[in-house]
């Protein structure tokens, strides 16, 4: 059973902060299909459309019939650990610094016409000696690429504290979290969820301190919370804040958001649209410039290293919702920037997690019909994402529905949205 993680000792300040090393990152284009699934939290393998054979490792042509019609297909992931070993020596620096490391071979369950494949996997410490029933999960590693992890068939106590598991997750437990805006309902829910998930210290940004927002004084009074001044529209404020707490942030959750609900013609002029861009896009850019480098430098800083940057985008970032036109556009801009942030930050092992929720149950969606994602549900999704191995999350039924339609054909979705869904 995994040893429960105890609060790590404070860092010895006379020792160098080690540079973040990454597990091997190169993958073939075909192999990135596995990453594509893992990024969404899905374990997918190619399945031959002609003979039904499940493929592993990813390949161009079916291992049984040489057909090239291979479709990435969700797998149940159950199987049997048939062999395992514990690595005690490695030439790869990433593993060398994290030894010992448990590896194994898992035979997937299968009822197809062909033999189910055997997988090379990382093995959770709580998996019994082979032969043992296990679950396979596809997760992103610190390099942002998919790896497979064998988990025990049933959850075990303190499972998430397993060192190998913790390398593949960004668990808030004993980590310091920065919630950039704690005043709104989403920010407040995120703060509470992070504390419930075991975060040691939650920095909470407060803009416009004169605004009395219900619930914020209760947030301020929580013992884990420290409120800091932050207005993401003000470069000087972002710089000051980063100077003050930047080296003490392991997980940044950007909850700062401007949201109005106007069609293109529904709000004359650009003042409102600019305000949305100023916070949703430029605010993110300012945060990325000030907090990004210091977090990247701490990608391997002891057991409570910098691990994740969380962006709350919107499913409207992928396809514009016409009656929230400018909000959608600002989220599309943020989505695009977040892709670049990912490209920059993966070198440090810091994971950029993007959430694309459906409409939230907040003031500016008052006129939308349910289903709407409550702030508490969104906060749970964030914690779930941090405790898991994915980077793209689609919370809520609307988001899942739109995402599938968008993957199938963005043009069809655009037309349907133009005609009111």
């Amino acid at each position, binding site marked *: 059973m995994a040893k429960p993680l105890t609060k790590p000792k404070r860092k010895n300040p006379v020792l160098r902060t080690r540079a973040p090393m990454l597990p091997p990152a190169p993958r073939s284009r075909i192999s990135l299909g596995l990453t594509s699934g893992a990024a969404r939290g899905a374990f997918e393998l190619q399945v031959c459309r002609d003979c039904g054979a499940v493929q592993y490792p990813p390949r161009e042509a079916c291992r049984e019939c040489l057909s090239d019609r291979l479709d990435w297909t969700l797998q149940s992931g159950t199987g049997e650990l048939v062999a395992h070993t514990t690595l005690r020596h490695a030439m790869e620096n990433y593993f060398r610094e994290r030894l010992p490391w448990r590896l194994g071979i898992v035979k997937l369950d299968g009822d197809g016409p062909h033999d189910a494949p055997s997988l090379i996997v990382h093995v959770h410490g709580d998996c019994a000696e082979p032969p043992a029933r296990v679950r396979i999960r596809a997760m992103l590693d610190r390099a942002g690429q998919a790896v497979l992890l064998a988990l025990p068939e049933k959850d075990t106590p303190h499972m998430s504290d397993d060192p190998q598991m913790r390398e593949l997750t960004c668990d808030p437990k004993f980590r310091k979290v920065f919630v950039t805006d704690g005043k709104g309902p989403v920010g407040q829910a995120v703060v509470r969820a992070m504390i419930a998930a075991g975060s040691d210290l939650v920095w909470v940004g407060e803009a416009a301190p004169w*605004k009395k927002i219900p619930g914020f004084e209760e947030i301020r009074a929580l013992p884990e919370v420290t409120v800091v001044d932050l207005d993401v529209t003000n470069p*000087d404020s972002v710089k000051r804040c980063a100077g003050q707490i930047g080296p003490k942030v392991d997980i940044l959750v950007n909850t700062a958001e401007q949201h109005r609900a106007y069609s293109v013609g529904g709000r004359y002029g650009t003042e409102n649209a600019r305000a949305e861009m100023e916070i949703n896009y430029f605010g993110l850019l300012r945060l990325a410039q000030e907090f990004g480098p210091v977090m990247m430098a701490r990608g391997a800083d002891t057991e409570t290293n910098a691990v994740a940057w969380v962006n709350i985008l919107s499913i409207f970032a992928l396809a514009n919702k016409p009656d929230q036109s400018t909000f959608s556009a600002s989220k599309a801009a943020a989505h695009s920037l977040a892709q670049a942030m990912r490209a920059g930050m993966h070198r440090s092992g810091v994971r950029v997690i993007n959430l694309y929720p459906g409409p939230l149950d907040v003031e500016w969606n008052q006129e939308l019909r349910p289903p709407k994602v409550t702030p508490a549900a969104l906060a749970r999704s964030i914690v779930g994402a941090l405790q898991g191995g994915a980077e793209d999350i689609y919370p809520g039924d609307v988001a899942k529905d739109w995402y599938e339609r968008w993957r199938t054909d963005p043009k069809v979705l655009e037309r349907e949205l133009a005609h009111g869904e």
Partner: protein
Amino acid sequence: MTANPLLDMVRGISERKIRVIDLTQTLSPDFPQIELPPEMGQCWPFRLEEVSRYDDRGLAAYWNNFSCGEHTGTHFDAPIHWVSGRNLPNNSTDTVPVENMVAPACVVDCAKHAEQNADFLLSADFLRNWEEEHGRIPPRSWVLMRTDWSKRQDPESYQNFDEEGQHTPGPDTDAVRFLVEERDVMGFGSECIGTDAGQAMHLRPPYPCHYYIHGAGRYGLQCLTNLDLLPPTGSVLFTAPLKIKQGSGSPLRVLALVWEGWADSPAPV
């Protein structure tokens, strides 16, 4: 003395007989901005973005781009700002007569009242009492309401919001009508974020200072500071807004000249 009183004035300034007092708050991103209900259009706060700072963006130069609303920081309100002044001649920052940008000021000390009651309303009777002590308010002069509100350094107490909105002092309807209709003032100035009181949306009419002052083609000054350094009468203000085409107002540097007397030197002949 020379034949040119302007040169006397300049000499007075250089010899510190005339003090120049800055009534302006520093334009800073941290200075609070007027807060309107979220569904309304918003006036931008002051923001500063570096162009370069002797770095790869420009090795030899430090400079910034700034952005703000017309009604940001210490600022001037032109008559066109309010619906009551929208059709008046010369009602915008580019057409306000420059002669109106130099005018004497009367300072009405309401500091004690504002300290006791953030919602203090300056009344016409208060002004009449002030006149008994300091003399009649001259036509075409500024009336500045000193509340020491500018001494509230942190934005939260400066804004002073609760669930019912902002609580800051200002004039009541009768006071404004008295100043405009019976005293023909140049304008009204305040240390708070607006010339009207924080709760002035509940007065009749709402925002009476904006309504009557601008309806009469007169001006407003907001977010003033250092009013405690001015005498009740006798100072002269320089209040030139930026020449924004059809501007409704503008941030500006407000300077006051205060005559200190020739006490240390021979009196002028």
